[in-house]
């Protein structure tokens, strides 16, 4: 809380929180009602970092105006937030997250790309940054190419690491010399020095200072990789957050004013979402994959084996970078999810128009179906990138015994194991605001292809960023609102894994509801929905021949699962491999059937489009 703020945590009864996204600014009002904190209202308005406003606070005020209009609660006195709350107006605290203005754009450097380079990348990503490039001694580029690249990218901040403590000095100093030669300038503003964080070999600190302290704003923190076996990311992440506020945000249009309004420092949106994902994994003691699909970027978070990882796919988003999704996935991959025939020029023009008018919303069902098809591809591509990045520490020597000889785990192998995944959580406009929760469930399943038994959830109205920052100052309120108003339990997906044959049984199921037992068979290629509310349910599952549903190949499984607002989705379409039919007519037939079976779109209109 702001140092001059006199309010104590227990006195906080009304909280205003905003998230300034690249496209929309979202405001929420949290109130203490009948003994608990609840989300009461939400407002939104286009973000106004662009001309003619060029002042983020306009969008913030507009979103608060909408909140006032919807809630009838008076928050503003002209352009001032009334605080603390008195009678029926004002709020006790105001907090905000932000990813507007392009977010935090960083370059990182390390000696070996896959070791200290990756550690630096993990630190920056975990702090909520977009990593524009990773410089490394062994990245294959010539010196002058690296220098040119730094000059051209003009990052907001650089994190330089390299060498374990007591290890190489020469290579680290070499990286510092490249930075010195490039003499990098910040992206925003000409009148301040570029912040550079040095988090490498202690022994190289002095020569690095010698080269960089005059031309940059150099800050030294503890080594990010003091030994090969240990990563120490927190000091770098904390410093990135501090500098984000002090340097980067202060340069963006209107942020100085916004910073003076908030009671706690503004946090980068992805950093705040990461806080919430970690909290879910901790409190429920589960493995989690979370995704936040935004207008410009898609962030994927995961907690496997207690390790938190975040990746940001900088150019995979639903508005500003929607054409890049199309470019990276290709027309056919998007079109395969659309249950009607589409002309390539028509589809690309529609998607192009979304890119150039990013704040528009789909009015027709056809437009919605196309957007959700692109979302599947954006999510799939982002998850592919995440799997490649969320890996065991590379370069670690592991002692092996004879019993390990048949295990393939090695340094650098991905931590993401879909069969081990307990919960998949989605956030971001296209998932949170999908007109039917069934659509969010289908997008998550089709994009991530969860294996075995996986719980699905979605951020109700896209408020994880605000709750993430709230959790850092008022954990109780954040957790209460998260449980009661934010996390919507969609249900559970059950998907047997392995090669299937046409028309063969892939799963036999017995589901014990409180007053009823449901039994049945799932045939290959089928997708079924059993509407079951959120409650623990005993199930007995027997996979088809050669298939695995979580207990091993051909092994039956008895366990407890949860329903949800959508229910239990039995997915017999196959995993490893999952394929859609190549023939357009047959594929469209399948898509319509699956859509009808899962209550995805209004039936009469599905046939109409």
């Amino acid at each position, binding site marked *: 809380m702001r140092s001059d703020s006199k309010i104590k945590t227990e006195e906080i009864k009304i909280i205003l929180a905003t998230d300034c996204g*690249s496209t929309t600014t979202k405001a929420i009002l949290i109130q203490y009602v009948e003994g608990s904190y609840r989300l009461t209202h939400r407002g939104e*308005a*286009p973000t*106004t*970092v*662009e*001309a*003619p*406003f*060029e002042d983020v606070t*306009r969008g913030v005020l*507009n979103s608060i105006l909408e909140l006032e*209009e919807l809630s009838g609660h008076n928050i503003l006195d002209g352009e001032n937030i009334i605080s603390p709350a008195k009678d029926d107006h004002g709020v006790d605290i105001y907090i905000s997250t932000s990813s*507007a*203005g*392009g977010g935090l754009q960083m370059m990182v450097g390390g000696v070996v790309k896959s070791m200290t380079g990756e550690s630096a990348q993990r630190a920056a990503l975990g702090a909520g940054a977009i990593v524009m490039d990773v410089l490394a001694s062994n990245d294959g580029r010539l*010196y*002058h190419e690296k*220098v*040119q690249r730094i*000059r051209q990218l003009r990052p907001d901040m650089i994190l330089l690491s390299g060498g374990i403590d007591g290890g190489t000095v*020469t290579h680290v*100093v070499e990286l510092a*010399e*490249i930075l010195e*030669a490039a003499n990098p300038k910040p992206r925003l503003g*000409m009148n301040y020095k570029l912040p550079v964080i040095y988090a490498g070999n202690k022994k190289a600190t002095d020569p690095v200072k010698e080269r960089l302290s005059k031309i940059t704003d150099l800050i030294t923190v503890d080594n990010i990789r003091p030994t090969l076996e240990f990563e120490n990311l927190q000091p770098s992440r904390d410093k990135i957050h501090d500098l984000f506020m002090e340097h980067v945000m202060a340069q963006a249009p209107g942020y100085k004013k916004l910073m003076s309004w908030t009671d706690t420092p503004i946090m980068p949106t992805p950093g705040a979402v990461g806080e919430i994902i970690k909290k879910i994994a901790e409190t429920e003691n589960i493995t989690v994959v979370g995704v936040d699909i935004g207008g410009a970027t898609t962030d994927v978070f995961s907690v496997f084996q207690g390790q938190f990882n975040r990746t940001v796919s900088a*150019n995979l988003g639903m508005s*500003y*970078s929607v*054409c*890049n999704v*199309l*470019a*990276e996935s290709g027309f056919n991959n998007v079109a395969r999810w659309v249950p009607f025939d589409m002309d390539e*020029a028509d589809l*690309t*023009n*529609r*998607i*192009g*128009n979304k*890119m*150039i*008018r*990013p*704040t*528009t*919303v*789909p*009015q*027709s*069902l*056809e*437009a*919605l179906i196309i957007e959700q098809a692109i979302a599947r591809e954006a999510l799939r591509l982002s998850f592919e990138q995440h799997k490649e990045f969320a890996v065991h520490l590379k370069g670690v020597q592991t002692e092996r015994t004879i019993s390990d000889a048949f295990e393939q785990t090695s340094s650098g192998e991905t931590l993401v194991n879909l069969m081990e995944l307990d919960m998949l959580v989605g956030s971001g406009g296209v998932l949170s*605001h999908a*007109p*039917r929760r069934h659509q969010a469930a289908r997008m998550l399943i089709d994009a991530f292809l969860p294996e075995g038994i996986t719980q699905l959830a979605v951020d109700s109205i896209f408020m994880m960023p605000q709750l993430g920052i709230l959790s850092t100052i008022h954990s109780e309120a954040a957790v209460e609102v998260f449980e009661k108003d934010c996390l919507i339990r969609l249900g559970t997906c059950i998907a047997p894994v392995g090669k299937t044959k046409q028309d063969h049984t892939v799963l036999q199921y017995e589901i014990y509801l409180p007053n009823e037992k449901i039994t049945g068979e799932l045939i290959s290629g089928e997708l079924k929905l059993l509407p079951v509310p959120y409650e623990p349910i005993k199930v007995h599952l027997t996979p088809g021949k050669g298939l695995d549903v979580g207990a091993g190949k051909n092994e039956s499984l008895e366990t407890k699962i949860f329903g949800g607002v959508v229910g239990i989705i039995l997915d017999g379409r196959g995993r490893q491999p999952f394929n859609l039919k190549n023939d357009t007519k047959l594929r469209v037939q399948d898509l319509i059937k699956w859509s009808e079976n899962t209550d995805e779109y*209004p039936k009469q209109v599905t046939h109409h489009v």
Partner: protein
Amino acid sequence: MSRSYTPGLKILSRTKIRKQRQLPLKGIVHLNVGDEVSPDKIVASTELPGNVQMLNVANKLNVEPENVPECMLVKLEESISKNQIIAESKGIFGMFKSQLKSPIDGTLTSVSAVTGQAILSEPPVPVEVDAYTSGVITDVQNHEGVTIETEGALVQGILGIGGENRGILELATNSPNDELTKDMIKDNHKNKILIGGSFLKMSTFIHAKEVGVAGIISGGFDYLDLSNILGYSLGVAITGSEKIGPSLIITEGFGKIGMAERTYKLLSSNAGKFAAINGSTQIRAGVIRPEILIPNDDVNGKNIDYEEADLAISSGSLIRVIRAPYFGKVGRVMSLPTALSKMESETMVRVAEIKFEDGSIEIIPRANLEMILT
């Protein structure tokens, strides 16, 4: 009364235009506040650092890195020429010396006793910024650039490619709904800026390029053609640095879309006048839209500007729909209901009740409306 803020593009017949002309790095500003400028006048200049070359002196001379500084024959910041001997090892008893020649003309900028590397810089690259438009300098940002003020017409497009260009505006179509075709582009259109209509094909653009047209303004264009011109799929709308020949400014969007009547009328009424255009677009992190700027020397004209409040849609506002199924249609706001409404897509959104020019009334999401400033 309910109001809703909406993004809007400037289409102004006469307004005060301020252009910031900034250097990429600090440098020299050549003019002062009050100076009058013509479009080609150089207002500021600087030098971008030259390319660097790193030489592993320790390796080449076969000496330890800590001995490299004493082997250097030139001082820091000293000029060097290509093939000049810049370092020499001590050898054994003064014999068997190794020498190192400079691979470039430039200066020696750094020598490291830790890595044994020397950094050589090529000569700096001069950069000049011109005025782009005629007008008067109203502000000088020390060492960074100037602000030029002028009066005239300003039209913003939705997306452009190609950077700055200039020339005389020429009407090439008969209506905003005409497609600009190859046969409409004549040899005398060289160095001109053509006002098109609803669309142009890739082949027309190539023909315009061959003729030497400076710029084309069109209502629509195909996304796939745009990718073909650029040589890659435009993933994120950040453009301006590509070298494609004529600058292309799209005023409405992708596909065949008639240019907004108002835009077409305004541009046509300025045919024969000088225009500066810039296709640079950045729809992210501080949006930059492409623009057509037509300076007007007539001192008697009346300026029309607008306030921020004018961008708030309210009852009676003139608007245009910017997304299917009513894309491009113009109408007036009848009411702005507070409650959320359900669309065909089942999306719950805040809406506006719109009466179109043909008398029909439709409910449209507020987010899909664009204000038309009059």
